[in-house]
């Protein structure tokens, strides 16, 4: 054992010397890690309204843990992921976050799934000085002002999911460059924060690209019959708009698309994150063909960090991953990478949390989402993929917008 150690040191010394002035070299104190356990937690919505997203995020995170542990762990330390279900409830989300931080003494957390829960969980993690990485929240005021309306930037809250404030304008810009539309109508769910925020972003963006918004049609997401709204949208004072913007969640975008096509409207659908799941594309079918949105991830990307992820995910779960799985997987890889570079002590939890936080700020990884870094605001800095529904339940890539 001792001899092995000496040889290890020799090799390490030679390697460091070889790297020399190039400044490469991984974490130097790797042997203080070996045999240790790094505790991470996740607070995700595995049941309730968020259950269409949360389980995929967890699957992705678990796959990452499995891969990392199987290939020697983080400098020899194994990752232990304690996962909790917040049942899509804001209060429970905060409780589980607190329990993981104080009772389980986790080093960092992933989650929560919904922006609505993040409002409760993130400020708590911030006050308990524990890094928390959001993997699927796209609303506004997630980072850096997690304590909104208090504008103080949160030091411990990060996000690896693409916010609507980036996604929607990128999507509109790319379509405006391609086709120069002149008129549009916005269909927006008014009783859901995610959707109505999206509507506001559309209204604030269209002017820059000379698109005249003929009408803003608000509806409630709990409606059964959307045909009255679609009927209003496809013709405004006798004019059919070039674009219909849809900011809504769940099945609603698919219903609106089907309705508009049934009425014979032939323009372009543009939307937000609400378009980005196979379920919506499947439900919309032919009616959705060509509907464009900006996505954080694209299944068909064949760069190695995505291709390997897709293959591993399929082997593990017998199905294709989605954006949420990719973001959960990326989230865990980010935590592991930061832990590797953080010189953890394994004795002082508070100190280790702080070191981890500092290391997270300088993450620079190849991930399924593409090259990944955080901005100074702890938001995601990644390539944005403009995708279009293919009419058969999937998506095809239209444009790639690299992070500036």
């Amino acid at each position, binding site marked *: 054992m001792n001899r092995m150690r000496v040889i290890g040191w020799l090799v390490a010394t030679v390697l460091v010397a070889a790297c020399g002035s190039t400044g490469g070299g991984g974490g130097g104190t790797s042997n203080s890690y070996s045999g240790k356990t790094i505790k991470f937690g996740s607070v995700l919505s595995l049941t309730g309204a968020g259950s269409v997203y949360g389980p995929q995020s967890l699957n992705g995170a678990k796959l990452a843990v499995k891969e990392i542990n199987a290939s020697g762990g983080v400098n020899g330390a194994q990752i232990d992921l304690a996962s909790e279900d917040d049942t899509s409830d804001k209060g429970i989300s905060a409780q589980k976050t607190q329990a993981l931080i104080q009772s389980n003494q986790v080093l960092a957390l992933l989650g929560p799934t919904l922006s609505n829960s993040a409002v409760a969980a993130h400020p708590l993690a911030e006050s308990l000085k524990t890094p928390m990485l959001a993997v699927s929240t796209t609303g506004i005021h997630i980072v850096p002002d997690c304590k909104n309306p208090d504008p103080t930037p949160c030091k411990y809250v990060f996000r690896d999911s693409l916010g609507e404030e980036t996604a929607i304008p990128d999507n509109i810009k790319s379509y405006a460059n391609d086709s120069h539309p002149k008129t549009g109508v916005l269909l927006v769910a008014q009783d859901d924060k995610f959707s109505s925020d999206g509507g506001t972003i559309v209204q604030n963006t269209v002017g820059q690209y000379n698109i005249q918004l003929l009408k803003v049609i608000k509806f409630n997401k*709990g409606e059964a019959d959307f045909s009255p709204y679609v009927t209003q949208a496809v013709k405004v004072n006798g004019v059919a708009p070039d674009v219909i913007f849809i900011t809504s969640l769940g099945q609603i975008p698919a*219903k609106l698309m089907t309705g508009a096509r*049934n009425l014979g409207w032939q323009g372009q659908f543009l939307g937000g994150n609400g378009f980005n799941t196979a379920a919506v594309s499947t439900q919309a079918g032919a009616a959705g063909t060509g509907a464009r949105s900006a996505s954080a991830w694209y299944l068909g990307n064949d760069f190695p960090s995505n291709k390997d992820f897709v293959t591993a995910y399929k082997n593990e779960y017998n199905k294709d991953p989605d954006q949420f799985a990719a973001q959960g997987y990326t989230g865990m890889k980010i935590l592991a990478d930061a832990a590797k570079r953080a010189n953890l002590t394994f004795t002082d939890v508070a100190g280790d949390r702080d070191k981890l936080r500092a290391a997270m700020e300088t993450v620079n990884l190849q991930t399924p989402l593409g090259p990944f870094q955080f901005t100074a605001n702890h938001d995601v800095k990644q390539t944005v993929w403009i995708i279009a529904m293919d009419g058969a339940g999937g998506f095809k890539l239209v444009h790639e917008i690299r992070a500036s």
Partner: protein
Amino acid sequence: MDQQIVNAIFTGSIYALFAVGYTLVFGILDILNLAHSAVFMFGAALTYSLVVNHGQSFWIACVLGIIASAALGLVIEYVCLRPLRRRQAPPIAALISTIGLALVIVAAVEQGKQGGLFAWLWVDGANSVAFPRGTIPNPIWHVGDLTLEATKVVIIPISIALMLVLGYVMRYTQVGRGLRAVAENPRAARLMGLDVDRMIALTLVISSALGGLAGILFGVALGDISPYIGRDYVEVRGLAVIVLGGMGSIPGAVLGGYLLGLIEMLALVTLGSGARGGVAFAALFLMLVLRPQGLFGTRLRERI
């Protein structure tokens, strides 16, 4: 605007079909069967499950869905109504017990998941689903400026035909006469040798079959099936419809359904979606003040 009127007629037809079953029970038993909205949802959920999870053809699933809904009517009678009737509990007790059953049915469907106890009925939990494309043919016709979808158009003749059949049965057949006798005076009907319990069970079977069918048509036409469709979309509106049309009146329920559909559409187009529910219920309130018996109601006079 023309297209909006077409939209309103489709919506109104579903309200009408749902309310006919609602009003039938009220007309005969003087009881509001608040489990009716759960039957509506059950019909849609089971039919969806039979098609998607059990590989049945849509038509077979439809028939089974209606039969199962009718059977659920028997459950309502045997579990919620008959025991209370035996004890001569006041109508409010029956009202509460039907609310209870509705909650139980909704909760059971909500718990449905793969491998669960109710997997045969539902595996999608609290989620909303729609029939996959192609399981139901849905040709679309363009007539002038109007767009007509087959799945929606078909609701209109179905609801009108059912109303006519039901009207005929109630007026001209032995069964109908029996049902009316029970409605008029259950004790007298019993003394005349009518099996009142059987008549009531029959009422619930017919009413629930109609409720289930309304749910199926709703699921097909609007592509939205979840444990909550009854509660969210038709429960309170159904009440509004039968008040508009006159409690217990079948033609009233049909007309009330179309009327509510039109009022909602007008409110939506002129005032926006937020006003929709408010305007509909303002109309209901107005009707209660001006003509409490509703459009076709006669019960108030009967009672005097």
